[in-house]
């Protein structure tokens, strides 16, 4: 079923004289169309200068995070048909430097994530009773696609803030879970540092917005428990 909708998009170029403004685009979409499909339609037909990031189209690269009607979400897996009313509002992820329109610079996201942290893990058991010749374990990528949605939603994280943020702490905890003592020590130190878990105030916004079920707040609680000698904080 085709439907007419309006996308209200925040437009701004840092450094330009034109102040930020919302621009409205009208277009006809299908029942299945994602926000990303709609953005591509606009870029292809109405305005090639519209800036946004995207790559995989299926929630694995992590480039298309943005505010959709005020919530941090991935444009590629957010279907427009779920929204009542004819207008969907799009804004760039807060907390990251703006490149232009909906595109942000992810540099601060990686500030506390070590480039060498293992991105692979053992895959879930699917009931198989054998492994293929030459394969020692079935493995898969970590769930975190490094989209930045949680960092953006977290009330105490952000580019100018001291907190290392939920994604870095979740990644740190995953690394910790794969590390044997005494190599765990520097990781625990990082988690317990002034920029670490102590700044989290457990609003759980991170777990709510994560599009790939990483549940960063659980990882933070894990770290907190481990750092404080097994005592679970209220």
């Amino acid at each position, binding site marked *: 079923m085709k439907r007419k909708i309006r996308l209200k998009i925040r437009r701004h170029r840092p*450094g330009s004289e034109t102040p930020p403004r919302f621009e409205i685009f009208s277009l006809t979409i299908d029942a299945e169309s994602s926000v990303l499909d709609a953005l591509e339609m606009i870029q292809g037909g109405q305005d090639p200068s519209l800036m946004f990031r995207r790559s995989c189209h299926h929630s694995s690269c992590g480039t298309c995070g943005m505010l959709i009607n005020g919530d941090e979400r991935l444009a590629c897996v957010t279907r427009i048909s779920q929204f009542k009313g004819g207008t969907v509002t799009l804004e760039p992820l807060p907390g990251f*430097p703006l490149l232009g329109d909906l595109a942000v610079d992810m540099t601060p996201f990686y500030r506390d994530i070590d480039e060498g942290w293992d991105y692979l893990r053992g895959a879930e058991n699917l009931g198989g009773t054998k492994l293929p010749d030459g394969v020692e374990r079935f493995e898969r990528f970590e769930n975190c696609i490094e989209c930045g949605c949680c960092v953006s939603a977290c009330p105490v994280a952000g580019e100018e803030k001291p907190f290392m943020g939920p994604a870095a702490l979740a990644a740190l905890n995953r690394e910790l879970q794969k590390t044997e003592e005494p190599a765990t020590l520097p990781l625990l130190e990082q988690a317990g540092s002034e920029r670490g878990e102590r700044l989290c105030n457990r609003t759980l916004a991170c777990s709510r917005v994560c599009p790939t079920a990483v549940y960063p707040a659980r990882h933070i609680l894990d770290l907190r428990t481990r750092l404080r000698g097994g005592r679970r904080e209220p």
Partner: protein
Amino acid sequence: MEHIIIIGGGGAGAALAHDLTLRGFEVSLFEKGELTSGTTGRHHGLLHSGARYAVHDRAAAVECIEENRILRTIAPQALEQNDGLFVALSQDDEEYGETLLDACRTSGIKAKKISAAEARALEPALTPEVRGALQVPDATMDAWRLAMYFFATARRSGATFHPFCEVQGIDTRAGRVTGVEIIDYTAGKTRTVKGDLVVNAAGAWAGRVAALAGIDVPIQPGPGVLVAVEGRVTNMVINRMHPAGEGDIIVPQRGLSILGTSLWLADDPEDISPPKEHVDRITALCARMVPAVGEAAVRSVWSAARPLIRDAEASSPQQISRTFECYDHKVIHGVEGIVSLLGGKATTVRAMAEKTAGLICHKTGHEIPCRTRTTPLIPWRCFFSDAPRGGLPRSAP
């Protein structure tokens, strides 16, 4: 050294930037959207063993297995290395399997015949109708992270990247390309960039880019549909044991299963919205191999355009070779200073870059060996952590 301008920030442009900077060239790359916003990133994510092509496209099969081995060592964290199966569901499939096994052997692809019971012991989600299988060294790739490995390494070696900068003109003087005209969407301004040589690495858009220099290149966008469904139901890549067709590959990735694909020929690489009937057909065909994917909730549906090299001889689009070519337009069209890199697969971008950088060395009179086969790539995260800080624009309040 010479300043090389690359047009196109997909896997091919990324791998070429890496190869050229390793050889000492100065490199600037322009991409009209974000890096990897073209076909790279939204492809199926299969690191081909080459088995899919072994019977009808030996050249592509040999390229795939060679690159498959190299990428496993230079970019391991961009791959789920669980191998793949070709599964037979009919007698025809089983007969094709014999041909396939031979073809794999002659192409250097390690393939092992296994029984139906063994296949189901590896992957219980396979249909009980499976009659036998071949194990091959397929793998899953993270399409974005693999490309970003190349970008990160090239950036550290000095390449500069200009996303959101579209090439709108190619400047020529007296039969020689002198540079490109850019519209920089980040600044809303146009500018001219001078270079000693321009490389057209625009994938399915390569025809349009070449036309800016008055050149015709034989590129044909060949879109296909992909369907991501919820749930990781196999750990291995599952292929149908039959001549490469539609809806015959399932690639597990994270908690998803990616079903694909279809193929048609298009004129416009952007006018490729997925036809509903393709989604239904792909899902039904894949569900014959692994029934659970037919029941699973759909996470996303999209399409991407292959950069196919036109081939009037091919009896069907599936038969068009997936190998690649690099063209020196001086030789073919009498235009100096521009090279096009066409065709190929995400699996073979490193090889595409090696050949193109070799051609560029030849044209510029350098004799510098390629080092990308053995140089480990720097993890994708470095693309961001290496980025110059401080000078970045701040977000507006």
